[in-house]
């Protein structure tokens, strides 16, 4: 219970707990209702009642009298199981849940939102998915995506590999949206897969009828059944509830705090568009086809990697700090074509001498680096900075973690960073690759 000192004492005195039907008297009026829990960050000295017309109200308990009408139990949610009969004609798709808002159920009595963990819960809320495939659900984590860590990527990749070994035809990963593009990049580097691995989520939580979760899930299951055997992100393509775009996992980024179509392909076009759980159009044939690769898991990651964004007024301390702390890699978000102030050069040289891999990307987000145009760029290259090409800073960061996991040798790392592994590097910048 989240009641604090004053309110807790007040309730204890009358032996009242959450879920009880109570009467509260304040001067000439009285309120009858069920005592609800109170959010932890709310002010003390108040209690919350759900009165019989359904409204919640907060009551200040100074000068209030409380009386128990009827003892209640703290409401629990129980669901009937949905019986799932597998259809041998259909593909077997696994949904791995890592948390986020992909599916949750509201308890109207208390207003609490409960995450969905079992296949039966998720399918009860989204039963149409069963028309598309045999669905199994595994709950791996229940974490907000800002709390993701490289070690969770590794476990997720391992679980996916296990399931692919067990014969699933495609995998959908339900994920919070904030760091979805980091995870999609990480899985892209760690896994070579004969089947699609599709990451999806929701911008608007599933307790609301307007949630985008269902459309995203349905099209993700469609994508997981498709021939596109890559790690992809499948999310709303527009503000409409009409179709989803399927983005390459290394070329996608969350670009808006709140819109449903927040995920956009960067320096790339979406691979395909999915509608009603089916492929509706495809932009390119340049993708890895189903069963063209053997399953391969390369799950060594170096987590001692940091991102440094340059800015007017940056000082060498930021680089030196990470060198002193024993970081193995630094991802720099430079300006424009890939620059940082020239007075930073000594710190960069020192980091290089201490065998720290330094990769440059651009805070422009769009476009490729060219560090030969201005002298600062050339000096940085000479100091050992590796160009990140047209990778987004997030993808380049993840790739650096992965590259350092594959080798400690700086030449090897340079090679890995500058070689296209999972569609993260484009030689060619198309006119179509901006703001789409």
């Amino acid at each position, binding site marked *: 219970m989240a009641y604090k000192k004053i309110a807790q004492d007040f309730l204890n005195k009358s032996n009242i707990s959450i879920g009880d039907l109570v009467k509260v008297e304040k001067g000439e*009026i009285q*309120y009858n209702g069920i005592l609800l829990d109170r*959010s932890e960050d*709310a*002010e003390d000295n*108040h209690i*919350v009642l759900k*009165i019989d*017309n*359904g*409204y*919640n*109200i*907060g*009551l*200040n308990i100074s000068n209030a009298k409380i009386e128990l009408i009827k003892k209640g139990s703290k409401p629990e949610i129980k669901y009937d199981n*949905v019986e799932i009969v597998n259809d041998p004609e259909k593909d077997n798709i696994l949904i791995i849940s890592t948390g986020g808002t992909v599916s949750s*159920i*509201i*308890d*109207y009595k208390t*207003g609490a*939102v409960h995450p969905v963990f079992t296949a039966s819960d998720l399918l*009860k*809320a989204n*039963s149409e998915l069963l028309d598309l495939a045999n669905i199994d659900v595994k709950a791996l984590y229940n974490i907000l995506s800002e709390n993701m860590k490289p070690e969770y990527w590794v476990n997720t990749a391992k679980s996916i590999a296990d399931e692919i070994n067990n014969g699933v035809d495609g995998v959908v990963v339900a994920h919070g949206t904030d760091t979805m593009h980091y995870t999609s990049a990480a899985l892209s580097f760690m896994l070579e897969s004969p089947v699609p691995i599709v990451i999806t989520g929701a*911008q*608007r939580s599933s*307790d*609301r*009828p*307007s*949630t985008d979760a*269902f*459309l995203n899930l349905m099209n993700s299951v469609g994508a997981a059944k498709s021939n596109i055997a890559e790690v992809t992100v499948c999310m709303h393509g527009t*503000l*409409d*509830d*009409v179709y989803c775009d399927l983005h390459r996992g290394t070329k996608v980024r969350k670009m808006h*705090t*709140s*819109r*449903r179509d927040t995920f956009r392909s960067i320096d790339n076009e979406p691979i395909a568009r999915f509608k009603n759980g089916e492929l509706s159009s495809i932009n390119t044939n340049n993708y890895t086809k189903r069963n063209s690769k053997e399953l391969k898991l390369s799950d060594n990651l170096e987590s001692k990697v940091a991102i440094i964004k340059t800015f007017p007024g940056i000082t060498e301390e930021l680089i030196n700090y990470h060198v002193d702390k024993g970081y193995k890699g630094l991802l720099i978000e430079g300006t424009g074509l890939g620059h940082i102030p020239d007075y930073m050069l000594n710190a960069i040289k020192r980091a290089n001498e201490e065998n720290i891999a330094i990769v440059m990307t651009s805070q422009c987000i769009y476009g490729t680096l060219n560090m030969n145009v201005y002298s600062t760029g050339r000096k940085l290259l000479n100091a050992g900075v590796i160009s990140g090409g047209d990778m987004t800073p997030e993808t380049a960061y993840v790739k650096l973690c992965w590259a350092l996991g594959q080798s400690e040798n700086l030449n090897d790392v340079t090679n890995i960073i500058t070689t296209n592994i999972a569609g993260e590097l484009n030689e060619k910048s198309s006119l179509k690759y901006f703001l789409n």
Partner: protein
Amino acid sequence: MDWDDLGLKMGLEIHQQLNTETKLFCPCATELIDERFDNEIKRGLRPTQSELGQIDRAAFQESMRKLKFNYEAYNHRTCLVETDDEPPHDLNEEALDLAITIASLLNMHIIDEVHTMRKQVIDGSNTGGFQRTSLVATDGYLETPQGKVAIENLCLEEDACRRIATENDFTHFRLDRLGIPLVEITTDPSIHHPEQVKEVAYVLGQILRSTNVKRGLGTIRQDLNISIAKGSRVELKGVQNLDLIPEMVELEVQRQLNLLNIQEELKSRDARVLDDIHDLDEIFKNTSSKILSTAQSIKGIVLKGFKGLVGLEIQKGRRFGTELSSYAKKREVSGIFHTDELPAYGISQEETESMRSYLNADEDDTIVIVAHDEDIAISALEEVIRRANMAFDGVPEETRKALEDGTSEFMRPLPTANRMYLETDIPLFKIDKNKIINIRNNLPELPEEKKNRIIDEYSLSEDLAKQLVKKLHADEFEIIMKEIDVDSTLVASFLAYNLREIKREGIVIKHINPKDLIATFKLLSAEKISKDAITDIIKEIAINKEAIEQQFNEKENGFIKYVDKDIDNNIDPEQIAKSLDLLLLGENDVENIIIEIVNNNSSMIKEREMGAIGPLMGISMKKLKGKADGKLVNKILKEEIKKLLN
């Protein structure tokens, strides 16, 4: 009817839009937009399965099919909060203050801490699938000429989208109205007389209008709850005309009584509703009925012992069959046929007979048929069966739409338990005691008090003061009177009557503000214009302002044209009076004009002597067209005639 005997009980629910700067949870303006929208957003809503009870896939699909919506949005005048992308911003405190003001005028108790709730609504009128609402005050009362009425609750909530059109696949909504703050005021259900409900609605309306609420069509909506002792609670939604309330109550009571009679009759006849839905295609294969012959399939059911009852009128122009039909219509059919009214509609006596024998229905039974696509016909008849079965319980609890002739039409069952849960995106709002004290110390004057005060203060007639208060010009009147030294009756009657006449001529007067009126009346007190010129000047100001406004709204290649919208500074009533040639002439100018007239008519003057004043006065006033005071003209004319005669 003896209302007490019947155990008539009524309650009112009033929704009033507030006239705040911005919407309840976003910074958009609270104005409706009648221009073409910039974007249309296609959305669906998804009831959670638990709300539909057991998983019935067919019913679920059916409900999903209908939940497709097009939202009309504007690039700059609506925002991502309204499209349900961006989370709501903080609760609009101006709206909360207004709600507390209204609650205080209704003697209510303010809740200590306001919690915003989500109330599920999945008809598309809210983009999120829920309406945000919070309980602000409880336990008040209202004094009416017929006694005290308890006010149960006052909630602050957001208005829904405007429904623009319904097509087969989509309902079109406009986002402009979504989020305009509303107060919802509910009385307790203890009003016993129809005239009193009307009175309560009227008094509540007056109180609301003494605060900063929206005015005009659609800004206040009344719902009426009615029940009689043996009947059930029925909510009549969207009562527009207060004068119609007593008739509406009477018609609803009549409907409930007739349904109770039907209930009794059905029981005495041992009537039954048969569940089987029969295929009647064969019987009507050669029918001459156009409706039947063009339908994909014809289905029928038997209501045992219902004969005559389906065709029975239960409310003027509405039969029991109309009730059955309105349930069927929720399944997209245009109506039903029943044997109480057959043969008709091209269905022959023979067809009716053969249908009876095919279905084993005898003379006491009623057959109901529906012609449509097979699945729709079946689901429509299932609804008819459901409603027919309810007849055995008397009056069903329903939400009904109030129609203009005082009758009503079934909309949906009464909502059962409120599906409400906390809106977690909005912090709890603790209401500071000082806020309440401050608001209570500055409550607006109620209409009656205001009327009496301005009668005293400005020595106005009862009628003028009443008109000013009723037409909401009293505040403007006082603002103007503070600034000028003009006869109060002149100003008051201009606001109460002349302004309305200008509007009747089709001139947009919404841009006319007290500043314009003060400047114009000042011309009068400076004797620069005559009082007859005031209407013409104000009219011209209104026309000019509207033209500027129009220009401002014009777009060129999608861009708004740049126009200096600082209208007030561009408009000078004196300039306008001059351009209309309405400025009074100086005494010398008047004298010169009159001398000319006198000289031109010298022969007539010599003939008639002082008797020429009459005709010459007419000629002079015509020539001076309101630019000179009549008394002055008369005086100069007399002098000049005398001069000429001497």
